[in-house]
């Protein structure tokens, strides 16, 4: 079965890709899929009809319940017969229908092939999620087929409508399937039906969502609007997709689920049967007013699908059998009827019943097909449609829910069906022509390719209508696979003079009467189009409302002011956990207001500096106070026993201050103050809320005992596993080395971004703008220069020491790199950017890249020796002077970190240290 699906996919793809070269031969290529499937089905028919389903399973993601399970049972075989059988006929028909040189024939035919494959997958899938996948594939192929004539705006709109309606339904169905699968604890379709979960609220919601998907796909009221629109597709496509196969997907799913859920879930029958019968009547009324034969058939399809949903929705034993017969009967007569319309269109260039002429001699076969198809549609005895209608009315009479009402509604619907069937037949043989045929269009005889497939279908309709026994085995197997308690079914044409026969005759007679009295009844029939919410207006209104709502929401929520966006985000982030905190445990620390007086003094310093940084309106001063906060933080780190942090913080703060100085020297001294007072109050309000929440959060986290297990493990294992005594460094370069690798990558990215932004617009290669004034050299002071060199060397040595010693004592790659960066800053201050550039011949991004590669290499190398990523190794060297030196692989990693941080510092000077081409006065004046 997997092979069949693959065949469809491959042949469809070939037809699409090589369509131009293949020409009409594309039909043979893509038709191979349905043909082989049909042959396979015939070969396996005996096995399946003996009620032994053929299964196939490819394991995919078993843990998610997602396996590629395929299962061909009786009902599956029945659907497959329609999909493959009618598929073959449609391909034969297409071969004659399309002109050989038709543009894009390969694509069209290939898509039909792909669609056929999706449909085969849909009816074979035994996993709900796989079924959903094929379901959506049919939606997409259908969208492409409806919109095949992409130069026609009408086709595009119809395709979009079909996609939106069935796609939205499909999404609802996915949610529903997930809920149902969760409730059933299985995603196997057969498993779900064999052992349905007990009714619950979740199951109700899930099933309702699944039904929405099924209704939208099978064009049930109020989602039916897309199906008539889909008639812009070429007629063979309409015959296949929009009458015989795809629209039956929803019916298929309802048929599968109904026996399991119709009984236990109380609302199922009222809801499903009501929707089905409403659709039947609405579709019938609309069909009676159409003059385009194709549209007439489309609304007829809507009506018939309603009947199928109602019958299958009952889920009773006689309903599943009756539904199976209806499915077969409808597919046969509706595909044939569409083929008749296609042949008429081909012959006369119109399908409007007001213009179609009476058939000439050579066109009699087409008229005959139309007659038999219409008779079967109407339910005239000795056609399969009659047999189906008998069993359906029988099943509806025994409905466990409101049998009288549903039977009456079905009889009304059947009468309407009979009426529009007559209208179809009458119109197709030119009896309703009001205009004389256009003499300019010479009638063409229909070639055999347009007639034979219809003849095959009508022959089947007639034979099965006279001797329905031929379908006994198929219908029995189908019914039994849906509802295992069903015994073998025997089909008969004549059941004696009973109520059902009377009802059938009433429907036929009523239909004839309606058709005969169509002129006086016109105002009544017009009601069908005047229902309060017709599908077309409903769809348009929904689409408009959606767009309007989206615009309005965007207009309100996104007014364009970034501070407001940020305010909303920050406030949400504060209020949501804040309210949770209010109900949580509170803790007043360990009772102490302050841990020590030194700490209190530092805290007061930070407080004052932060306040100053916030309130001051001078850029420079505010930045300097931020620096004060940072340096004071380093003091706190020392007090709290974190010397690594203190060293790093001091280095970083130095670099940050230099950075601010470099950038802010270009910007105006003061901030422009343009904020209105209410805005300021709002900002302060948000700020206070955030501050309070964080305050509460800090208190609450303090309330928990610090998570000691991880920390204790790290402390214990730092030396034995990480070969280092400095636990912080071991965590960084060993235990959590992968995180660090990610972090230095972020550093590198930020540094590259900063350089790119700062140097954007400058001339490549660092060529100076000759027009710009030469940089003003700082006054050279020998003492400064010499002392700088001395300090630089000292700092560099310290940096390298920190790097090497960092594994066992405070220090490490980050701290070392930052100190080295500070040394670079010193060079810059004394000698400008040229002095920094003279440090090495390499560009500043070289250490950045080398560092990143070193660290990544240290992470990967252990893999080569069969270890895991970042596994640390140790090698002890006996160096003559220094004694025993331990070399750990972590050191290589740390060196990478060290280089990245140095690179970062150098990049910063490269970005901003250069005297920029100052904004020339006139352009600056121009923008002000």
């Amino acid at each position, binding site marked *: 079965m997997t092979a069949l699906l693959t065949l469809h996919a491959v042949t469809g793809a070939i037809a699409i890709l090589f369509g131009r070269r293949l020409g009409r031969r594309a039909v043979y290529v893509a038709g191979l899929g349905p043909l082989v499937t049909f042959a396979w089905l015939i070969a396996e028919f005996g096995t399946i009809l003996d009620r032994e389903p053929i299964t196939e399973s490819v394991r995919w993601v078993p843990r998610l319940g997602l396996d590629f399970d395929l299962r061909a049972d009786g009902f599956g075989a029945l659907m497959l017969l329609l999909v493959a059988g009618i598929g073959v006929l449609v391909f034969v028909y297409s071969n004659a229908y399309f002109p050989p040189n038709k543009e894009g024939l390969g694509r069209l035919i290939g898509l039909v092939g792909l669609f056929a494959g999706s449909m085969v997958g849909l009816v074979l899938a035994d996993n709900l999620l796989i079924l959903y996948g094929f379901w959506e594939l049919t939606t997409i192929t259908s969208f492409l087929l409806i919109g095949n004539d992409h130069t026609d705006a009408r086709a595009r709109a119809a395709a979009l409508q079909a996609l939106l309606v069935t796609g939205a339904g499909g999404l609802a169905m996915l949610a529903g399937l997930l809920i149902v699968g969760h409730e059933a604890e299985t995603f196997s379709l057969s498993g779900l039906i064999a052992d349905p979960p007990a009714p619950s609220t979740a199951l109700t919601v899930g099933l309702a969502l699944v039904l929405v998907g099924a209704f939208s796909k099978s064009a049930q009221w109020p989602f039916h609007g897309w199906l008539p629109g889909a008639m812009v597709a070429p007629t063979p496509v309409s015959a296949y997709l929009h009458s015989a196969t795809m629209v039956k997907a929803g019916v298929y799913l309802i048929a599968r689920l109904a026996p399991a859920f119709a009984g236990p879930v109380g609302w199922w029958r009222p809801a499903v049967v009501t929707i089905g019968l409403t659709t039947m009547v609405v579709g019938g009324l609309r069909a009676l007013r159409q003059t385009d034969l194709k549209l007439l058939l489309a609304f007829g399809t809507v009506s018939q699908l309603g009947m199928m949903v109602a019958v299958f929705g009952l889920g009773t034993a006689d309903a599943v059998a009756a539904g199976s017969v209806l499915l077969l009967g409808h597919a046969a007569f509706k595909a044939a009827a569409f083929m008749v319309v296609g042949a008429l269109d081909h012959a006369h260039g119109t399908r409007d019943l007001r213009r179609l002429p009476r058939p000439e001699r050579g066109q009699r076969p087409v008229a005959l097909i139309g007659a038999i198809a219409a008779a079967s549609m109407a339910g005239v005895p000795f056609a399969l449609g009659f047999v189906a209608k008998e069993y359906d009315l029988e099943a509806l009479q025994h409905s466990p829910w409101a049998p009288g009402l549903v039977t009456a509604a079905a009889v009304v619907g059947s009468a309407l069906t009979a009426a529009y069937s007559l209208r179809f037949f009458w119109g197709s043989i030119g009896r309703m022509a009001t205009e004389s045929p256009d003499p300019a269009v010479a009638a063409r005889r229909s070639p055999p390719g347009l007639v034979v497939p219809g003849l095959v279908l009508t022959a089947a309709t007639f034979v099965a209508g006279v001797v329905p026994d031929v379908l006994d085995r198929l219908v029995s197997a189908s019914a039994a696979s849906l509802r295992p308690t069903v015994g073998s079914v025997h089909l008969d044409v004549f059941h004696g003079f009973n109520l059902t026969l009377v009802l059938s005759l009433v429907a036929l007679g009523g239909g004839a009467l309606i058709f005969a009295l169509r002129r006086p009844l016109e105002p009544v029939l017009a009601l069908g189009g005047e229902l309060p919410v017709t599908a077309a207006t409903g769809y348009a209104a929904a689409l408009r409302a959606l767009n309007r709502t989206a615009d309005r929401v965007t207009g309100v929520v996104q007014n364009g002011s970034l501070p407001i966006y940020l305010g909303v985000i920050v406030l949400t982030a504060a209020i949501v956990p804040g309210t949770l905190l209010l109900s949580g445990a509170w803790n007043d620390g360990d009772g102490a207001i302050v841990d020590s007086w030194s700490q209190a003094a530092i805290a007061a310093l930070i407080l004052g500096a932060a306040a100053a940084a916030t309130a001051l309106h001078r850029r420079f001063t505010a930045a300097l106070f931020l620096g004060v906060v940072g340096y004071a933080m380093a003091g706190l780190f020392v007090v709290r026993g974190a010397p690594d942090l203190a060293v790093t913080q001091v280095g970083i703060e130095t670099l*940050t201050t230099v950075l601010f100085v470099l950038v802010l020297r270009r910007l105006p001294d003061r901030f422009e103050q343009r904020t209105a007072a209410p805005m300021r109050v709002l900002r302060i309000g*948000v700020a206070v809320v955030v501050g309070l929440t964080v305050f509460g959060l*800090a208190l609450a986290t303090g309330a928990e005992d610090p998570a000691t297990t991880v920390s204790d493990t790290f402390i214990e294992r730092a030396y034995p596993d990480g070969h280092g005594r400095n636990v*912080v460094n071991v965590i960084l370069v060993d235990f959590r080395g992968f995180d660090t690798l990610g972090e230095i990558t972020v550093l590198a990215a930020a540094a590259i971004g900063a*350089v790119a932004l700062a140097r954007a617009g400058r001339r490549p290669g660092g060529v100076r703008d000759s027009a710009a004034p030469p940089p003003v050299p700082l006054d050279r002071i020998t003492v400064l220069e010499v002392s700088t060199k001395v300090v630089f060397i000292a700092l560099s040595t310290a940096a390298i020491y920190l790097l090497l010693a960092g594994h066992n004592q405070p220090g490490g790659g980050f701290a070392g790199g930052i100190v080295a960066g500070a040394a670079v800053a010193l060079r810059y201050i004394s000698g400008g950017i040229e002095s920094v550039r003279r440090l090495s011949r390499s560009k500043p991004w070289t250490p950045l890249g080398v560092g990143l590669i070193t660290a990544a290499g240290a992470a990967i190398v252990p893999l080569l020796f069969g270890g895991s990523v970042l596994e640390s190794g140790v090698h002890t060297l006996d160096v003559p002077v220094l004694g025993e030196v331990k070399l750990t692989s972590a050191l290589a990693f740390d060196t990478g970190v060290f280089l990245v941080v140095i690179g970062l510092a150098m990049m910063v000077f490269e970005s901003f240290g250069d005297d920029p081409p100052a904004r020339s006065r006139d352009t600056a004046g121009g923008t002000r």
Partner: protein
Amino acid sequence: MSLAIVGLIGVLFAAGTYLLLQRTITRIIIGLGLIGNGTNLLLMATGGRPGATPVAGGGSEVTDPVPQALVLTAIVIGFAITSFLLALAWRNWTLDGNDEVEDDISDRRIARAERDTEADGAGASDERGDGA
């Protein structure tokens, strides 16, 4: 954890948020810096009581090393972010002569379009009403 530190964290966040909501990029950067410092302090505070330097084989009562490792990288990344944002401010200055965050023009356009269609819709329905 002492109340003074907890209060300090709250103040740093409040001041940082206030600055974050400004339009001047420089102030936003300073605000981010304050929030970053507050976060580092918060991380440290979750480590429990202060103690000796976490060096294996050292004292018995050591500070929790995990928050320290987190803060260490946070400090460096904070610097990288600051430099990136300063580059943004710089670029904005060279292009526009200011370092203000402007309103998102495309968002404003949508809001305006929405108002327009609303006005049109009202007008259209009026016309229909007249026709009937």
